[in-house]
């Protein structure tokens, strides 16, 4: 009994005052939202580093930002404010930058395709449009 009583304060729940039950499960669209913000930042950074590509990249950055806003709306959350995420400086070579962005768009497309397959009916159309947009970005960056 003495040992058991001594062990109680060591349990994580008591130490952290976690009597409110488990935290709510993260929204399954959260990774898609984070990815949209990261892609928007990636295109914006690349457009800044390579002004010649700005006309090509800015509409794509805007699309990702619009995706993030729509995802936040249907998830019932606010878009993170403050400094936008950056994902490292773009390379100095414009061709390598485009290659890198194409790869990230392909990965993003595949993630959105998987998310669409798993989405409930009321979210499927939005997530499908996001998957399709990312697929068109791969084409637009060729």
């Amino acid at each position, binding site marked *: 009994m003495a040992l058991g009583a001594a062990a109680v304060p060591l349990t994580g729940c008591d130490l952290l005052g976690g009597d409110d039950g488990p935290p709510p499960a993260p929204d399954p669209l959260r990774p898609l939202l984070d990815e949209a913000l990261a892609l928007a930042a990636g295109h914006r950074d690349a457009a800044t580093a390579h002004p010649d590509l700005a006309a090509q990249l800015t509409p794509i950055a805007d699309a990702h930002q619009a995706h993030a806003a729509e995802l936040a709306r249907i998830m019932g959350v606010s878009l993170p404010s403050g400094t936008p995420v950056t994902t490292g400086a773009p390379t100095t070579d414009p061709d390598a930058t485009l290659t890198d962005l194409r790869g990230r768009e392909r990965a993003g497309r595949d993630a959105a395709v998987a998310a669409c397959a798993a989405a409930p009916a009321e979210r499927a159309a939005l997530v499908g449009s996001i998957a399709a947009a990312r697929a068109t970005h791969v084409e*637009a960056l060729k």
Partner: protein
Amino acid sequence: MIERVAPAPGEALGAALTAEYAAIYAYGPIGVRLSGTARTAARQAEAAHRRRRDALVMQLSTTGAAVPADQAGYALPFPITDRASALRLAVEVEERTAAHWRAALAATTGADRDQALDALLDYAVRATRWRKTAGMTPVTVAFPGRPT
């Protein structure tokens, strides 16, 4: 509880089938105004619409859903008089069919939804290719297939 607003799968796929009929019809006048690689691309796009039409007719017949009939002709949104108008219509055809498949996403699950998403991506990418061929900018839209 969220109210179900999506149409039944058969209804949504029937609407997609009607859009495929219209797309195949439109690529007739589009193709004759194009040449070279653009004409080849039009032929390939038309073939993609025919493949999906055939698959839908088979699928709807098998499941006992209503199979909409093809019409002798479909109204084109504007006259096709030259290469520029042909390319503009090709963009519109792909966007419209993409919109019908997008609408089918909410009405379907499993393999049917995969099929609808595959069509949405395919036609959205074709619309972007046609915009590039036509020299339109930007070459993408933020939400392919979403009603504007």
